[in-house]
């Protein structure tokens, strides 16, 4: 296949297009920022995001936020360009700026407003991830534009900055508890929220909140998490104002921009060290759980000077099942991969995106269009995009890129009635697996890789709360691919049901194993099974089943790929 000329590269920053063309010397005409203030501001901006995160974590209600830390916080300039971000979960990396952009496009912000959204086709990723965006106005010009004064807001009354945070809510309605279903349309996945003002001039819109809460399974918990998200934004607003008061608005704006240049410079230097060329790779998803198999993801990576273009247009068309990824997921996965190449501790901001262009085709597995089902795109397809991009980069940087890791999150949901206490229960967990081997080391065993990093539920915590008995929790020996260096081993979790239960598994790498590199063997595929009356039945990668008392559910997660001939 001939290399494609990027015809329609995504440009998140239209105003900076000029700087995209030059090779690193575009800042030569500007003032050189003071190296001391650059470092001081770097710390301050990052610590604002971290403090927002602490507020969110501290005041949130649900274990998903408190213990699994499935949330992110970020700061943006007046144009929606990201200044800094604190992400605990890499899958949020690239998608936050798109949320803010969608919010800016959709509403006229006034002082005291906050916008919420989760629509994957309007700035979101999948429905459980709800983002709340708030503007920061000058404290002196607090009076907003008069209502009905037309579209134009006087310049001094526009927001100077934005703050935003995103949290994964444990349930947003839809066809199954936990809102991570084996669905075939977005409408089955939960409440769809376009960018809407949830807070207007400092007042919560109670009608809107009531409507939302009536459509979810655990309204009290949701309400608690929402108020935590609002508090987090308030913290961010307060801290930015303190900063402006201490250093002046022009100074803060200047260093926000300098830090974008800073991250861009370092990212460009890294890309410039990659040999120029066109590198192609294809990997695939097993299936969508609804009959479509071998869903390929294809990338053509072009490195030219200090810029990179990734063309995904030859990827599979979007599918019926829920493994479709919206564009922002694909962007997150790509940005994650480039972030792993950079060893310096740089602020994650708009500058990191500038050297990188994505080309996708609407209606494909990596850029799905409404109303494709997307619940699993976030957790499974994002992992495969990472595998694909790393595969292409490996051709450019042989010896520096690890073999494929387990490439799935092994999502497990079990629900039903606990007969011991006569109360309903719902349990959601993701399982780690093997990491890929590298040119110098074995892969790590039984750990989450790439786009997620959430904690497990301890066996003792699980048995206190749910009607299961865990019968095995172990490293799955010899599941890592062989090689000069072996891939990491996956894990085995077996649980016996103490009562009837309903369960869903959404997993990958059950058919196509994680690849090895340079003669290294692929990791072992994962396995799902049910043992009933002593007989073991192998189940597919994505399935829904009714379990009886005494049934044992087993999940064996994939091993990582090996590196080099043994």
């Amino acid at each position, binding site marked *: 296949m001939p290399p494609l000329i990027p015809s329609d590269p995504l440009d998140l920053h239209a105003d900076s297009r000029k700087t995209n063309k030059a090779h690193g010397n575009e800042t030569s005409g500007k003032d050189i920022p003071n190296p001391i203030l650059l470092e001081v501001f770097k710390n301050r901006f990052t610590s604002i995001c971290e403090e927002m995160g602490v507020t969110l974590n501290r005041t949130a209600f649900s274990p998903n936020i408190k213990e699994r830390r499935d949330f992110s916080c970020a700061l943006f300039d007046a144009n929606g360009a990201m200044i800094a971000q604190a992400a605990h979960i890499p899958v949020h990396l690239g998608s936050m700026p798109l949320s803010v952009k969608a919010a800016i496009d959709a509403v006229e912000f006034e002082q005291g407003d906050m916008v919420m959204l989760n629509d994957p086709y309007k700035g979101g990723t999948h429905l459980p991830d709800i983002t709340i965006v708030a503007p920061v106005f000058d404290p002196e010009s607090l009076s907003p534009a008069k209502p009905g004064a037309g579209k134009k807001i006087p310049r001094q009354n526009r927001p100077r900055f934005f703050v935003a945070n995103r949290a994964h809510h444990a349930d947003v309605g839809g066809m199954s508890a936990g809102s991570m279903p084996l669905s075939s349309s977005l409408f089955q996945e939960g409440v769809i929220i376009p960018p809407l003002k949830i807070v207007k001039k400092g007042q919560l819109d109670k009608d809107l909140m009531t409507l939302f809460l009536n459509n979810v399974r655990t309204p009290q918990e949701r309400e608690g998490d929402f108020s935590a998200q609002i508090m987090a934004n308030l913290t961010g607003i307060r801290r930015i104002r303190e900063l402006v008061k201490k250093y002046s608005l022009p100074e803060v704006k200047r260093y926000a921009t300098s830090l974008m240049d800073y991250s861009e410079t370092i990212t460009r230097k890294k890309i410039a060290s990659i040999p120029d060329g066109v590198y192609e790779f294809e990997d695939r998803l097993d299936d969508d759980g609804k009959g479509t198999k071998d869903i390929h993801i294809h990338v053509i990576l072009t490195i030219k000077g200090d810029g990179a273009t990734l063309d995904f247009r030859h990827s599979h068309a979007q599918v019926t099942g829920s493994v479709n990824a919206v564009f922002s997921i694909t962007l997150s996965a790509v940005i994650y991969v480039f972030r792993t190449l950079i060893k310096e501790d740089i602020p994650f901001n708009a500058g990191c995106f500038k050297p990188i262009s994505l080309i996708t085709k609407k209606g494909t597995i990596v850029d799905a269009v409404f109303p494709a089902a997307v619940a699993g795109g976030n957790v499974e397809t994002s992992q495969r995009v990472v595998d694909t991009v790393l595969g292409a980069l490996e051709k450019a940087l042989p010896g520096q890129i690890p073999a494929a*890791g387990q490439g799935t999150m092994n999502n497990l949901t079990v629900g039903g009635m606990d007969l011991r206490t006569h109360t309903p229960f719902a349990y959601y967990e993701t399982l780690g697996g093997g990491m890929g081997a590298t040119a110098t080391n074995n892969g790590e065993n039984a750990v989450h890789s790439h786009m997620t990093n959430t904690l497990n539920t*301890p066996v*003792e915590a699980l048995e206190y709360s749910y009607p299961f008995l865990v019968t095995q929790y172990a490293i799955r020996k010899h599941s890592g691919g062989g090689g000069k260096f072996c891939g990491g081993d996956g894990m085995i979790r077996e649980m016996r049901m103490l009562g009837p239960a309903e369960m869903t598994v959404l997993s990958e790498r059950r058919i196509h194993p994680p690849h090895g590199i340079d003669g290294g063997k692929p990791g072992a595929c994962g396995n799902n099974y049910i043992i009933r009356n002593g007989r073991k039945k192998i189940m597919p990668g994505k399935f829904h089943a009714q379990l009886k008392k005494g049934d044992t559910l087993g999940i064996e997660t994939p091993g990582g790929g090996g590196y080099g001939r043994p």
Partner: protein
Amino acid sequence: MELIGVDTGGTFTDFIYRKEGKWGVFKQLSTPSNPAESVLSGISHITQSDNYKMVHGSTVATNAILERKGAVTALITNKGFEDVFAIGRQNRTELYNPQYRKPPLLVPSHLRFGVHCRTRSDGGVELAFDDASAAEVVEKIKQAKVDSIAVCFLFSFLNPHDEIKMEKALEALKISTSLSHKILAEFREYERTSTTVVNAYVSPIMKRYITHIIENIHGNELRIMQSNGGSISAATAMNESVRTILSGPAGGAVGAWETGKMAGVEKLISFDMGGTSTDVALIDGGLPLTFESAISDFPVKVPMIDIHTVGAGGGSLAFMDAGGALRVGPESSGADPGPICYGKGEQITVTDANLYLGRLVPEHFLGGHMTLDFQRLESYFDKMSRESGLDKKTLAEGILSVADTAMEKAIRVISVERGFDPSEFSLFSFGGAGGLHAVSLARLLNMPTVFVPQNPGILSAVGMLMADVIKDYSLTIMQKAQDMDHAMLEKQFEPLVEKGIEELLLEGIDKGRIHVEKFLDMRYKGQSYEIMVPFTTEYENSFHLLHEKSYGYSNPDKKMEIVNIRLRARGTPEKPIIDPEPHAGKIPPAKAFGEKRPVIFDGVPRETDLIHRKHLSHGNEITGPAIILEYTSTIVMPPDTFARVDQFGNLIIHTCKKGEK
């Protein structure tokens, strides 16, 4: 009786002692290959008496883990759960490193063994303890030649019989054994296993060390500092060595609290800046505890004083990064090569920047025992000045302000992020480098005062001498709050109280000096984190209130769970008394003043007094700019500050001019 506090640190071993009613301090180089050498030679330097009591904080257990020099340890678990210790919580500590590897495990896979047995979450037996499979494991362990064994079965805190059976089965091997229900009787198997393994891994090493000391101190009393802020007998420390991990910084926090309390200051943020790192702790009328500590990524869930550490210290290296920012740390010059001014280093450190600006006085460093090479700095500052485009003085002050930013962030983490306003606290500065940065740091956080105790360089040793004897106990009971009442809970506490009193009597504490403090770990049903609440008749209300304070909301209608009960048995031995000094007038004696020196503040050289702290007395006042010199540290008072010496010799620096607020 004489008293001696001994704190072994990475570079120095510090001693504080009271002999014939007088206090004295002594400091000498540590002997890392055999830490006991410096401890014992220091003691014979201080006293020949055979009637003294010694409290010792040791890094032996901590270092055994950090350097992986602990005992060869085996781990016994339920069959099918041998890898719980290896899997951990299935997360990685470096998000953007696809080549991430966990630190090497303290027990490799071939030394992890499973036994057929299983207890359920109600304490009932699902699978009876299988003697044959236990015997098999015992035989394998015998072959493996290990020095220590950890045993951790699921739900052993509810039903310890299987662990006790296992201990019996292992008896003949005569190998030191740690049982999880004794070390940490709390749920969450990975954390309990990790704590038990850490204990097994360090106990034989600690036992050897303590035995060696005991043999050489002629029957005098030895107590060992724990990380919970209390001391324990040498015998207990040998079996529960995990409680001594990270005890050095705990000594400092106890020292800060006890010194502050004596001076009437009970809201403190302790700030201990050393060569490679800085420890901070928030003290609000009592020492803060945490149950979430880890060493080398291994959780250690015994209670510890809550201390936050950042990688910024006097030895932190300054450099220009690829994006043009001035960075400081976390890499450090360490003891070797050390800063440029120590004669060998090749990269500018925070210490070098302090010296360049005149804030360190070369001929008075460590009381003149060590000289600093000012001349050597010039060429390195020339080079970095060209690289950064900053003039040399701006560069040096820039290095300090970047270092201050990192430390400011650390203090924000323990204060602002937990709902405390630092401007209500005094910054309690100690450690070798603390005094150089304390005032500028306090100003960044709007803290009105800096508190510098006497002998700030050996405060940890002071804290060890002042520490109470403390033993902590806990037990997971996992009960619904609606099924329990105060009397039922009291009943649950009974065995813990009995054990606590009995063990403190064994520690040599008089019955009248023992008291027990009771706490509950509670949560709303469905939560996966707990809050510690004092156990009174009002414990349910206290929980709602504390939840509101910590997390911003409470929900009195929601069901609650009582997860753990906790008991703290405290023995308060007689403490050394420090007599207040009489007021000696505002003006310091003439001999306190050394020569004047130019010191750079905000780019401008200012004529600055050098003042010898040993000649200052109660009531003396000093106006900044001034540099206060003493044996173990240097204190910088920038312009527009003033300070006063209190009745115990503490220096209280106000971060504004006299008369201003």
